[in-house]
């Protein structure tokens, strides 16, 4: 099935924040949408420019609960920055005309659960939730 067709039957608005927002603000935005696991970062023109996953956010904000850190995590723990400094700039996005089966593997490898569907101007049209895909597969 094509991403655009799926979105028509399962319209889901993605969680978005600005690159200048704090990590806490991004976490709060995700918590306000309990079914969402990924936050997309928009630039000033409203285009998708980055991505942060729930696990990554929780890993940074709850670092003090972990008994061991890599050196990279140590530095992250004591130098919190803005969303823009932690987001993945190379966002995996899907165009409406692309088939879900062609992009699913890459998203799973990157631990992305809300697959962003964007238009030619990189504006977010919605997200395909892996949770919805699983629900549909079980119902078949």
């Amino acid at each position, binding site marked *: 099935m094509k991403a655009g067709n799926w979105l028509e039957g399962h319209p889901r608005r993605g969680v978005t924040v600005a690159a200048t927002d704090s990590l*806490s603000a991004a976490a709060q935005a995700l918590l306000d949408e309990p079914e969402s696991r990924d936050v997309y970062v928009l630039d000033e023109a409203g285009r998708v420019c980055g991505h942060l996953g729930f696990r990554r956010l929780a890993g940074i*904000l709850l*670092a003090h609960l972990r008994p061991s850190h890599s050196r*990279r995590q140590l530095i*992250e723990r004591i*130098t919190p920055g803005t969303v823009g400094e*932690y987001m993945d*700039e190379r966002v995996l996005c899907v165009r409406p005309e692309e088939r879900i089966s062609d992009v699913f593997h890459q998203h799973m490898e990157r631990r992305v659960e809300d697959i962003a569907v964007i238009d030619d101007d990189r504006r977010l049209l919605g997200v395909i939730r892996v949770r919805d895909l699983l629900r549909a597969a079980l119902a078949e």
Partner: protein
Amino acid sequence: MEILLIGILLLAGLVFGTLGSRYFGVPRVVGYILLGMLFAPDLLGGALGVDTTDWTRPMVSVALGIIAYLVGGSATIGQIRRLGWTIAAATVGKVAGAFLAVFMVFGLLGAAVPGIPGWTFAVVLAAIATTTAPAAIVAIIHQYRAAGPLTTALLGMVALDDALGLVIFSLVLALVGAAGLSEALPGVVWEIAAALAIGGIAGWVVERLVRRLHEHELRLVALIGGIILLTGLAEAWHFSELLAAMAFGFAARFFGGAHSERLFEPVEQLEELVFVLFFTFAGLHFDLGVVVEYAWLILLYFLLRAGGQVLGSMVGARLAKAPPEITRNVGLGMLPQGGVAIGMALLLAGQERFAQSAELIVNIVTASTLLTESIGAVAARYGLRRAGETDRTLGGGVDEGR
């Protein structure tokens, strides 16, 4: 039979370390080292047909390259700026204090006491003394739920000081063995400049390659392949393998942007494997006769390193106008010495120019690691308590900038 021995060291080391930690409350590294001692060439290793430890050197080179890569990529320039003056000054003070104390006293001893190697021995040992074991300190902070300015300073310092230590150690290796400074200078410049340039280029190339790889497993192949290739090139073209690996990590992080998990997470998962190898290999080199004969040197090294870094970090923190709870306690939290120090010592073993001193250095560093892992934990806990920073996180708060 070496492959058989490596398998035994890894699995039995894991069992020894875990059991020791669980039932006797000793750090896992103690179990790793003891297990390595059992399989030394003149004990069970000899029975397995392994008569030397020369075969460990290529593995140590690659393993230390992995650690240097992780150290090089541990922070972005923006994060280093945000660390602040207190952490930067205390780290420089701690590293300088440990280096100077060990170098000066051991250098004088080498010149005055027969049977102790000379200035080369002192300067290499001093470079090794600058490193710290982050895992031990993080575990203490976690165990005592510590939070506050001292805790933040300690976390920053343990993340940074191995980088300084690796740079100093690389510079020392480049300089040691040269007949004279003017004669050595071109070689030293080449060793450093080539390492930085080739490591930097490797970081850019591998970062570009990793962008195209979505599978975790393939990224690991690219990253480890890069580290091994650099280590091999360093040996063939005579530039510093450690500086090159650090430059590789730094460049990969720089070109990869802030979200560089994919460049480091696969390699970070190998860190414990590397340390099990280091500690068990150190056990293989352990010589009870050397330790007994030079017990006073081991104790002296321990005291000088501890005293130098306590004083140095105190001076550094005071210069940065840090509050008293930091200046008075920061050095106490930095005593544990671990895998990086042992890896550096192992790298010297088998090198002709360190023929006289390598075994002694490995034994001093290994024995003092056992000391610092236990005494260091007590000192860190004392420092954190004195600063009033224990039992501060109850698991509820978000640790954003505390």
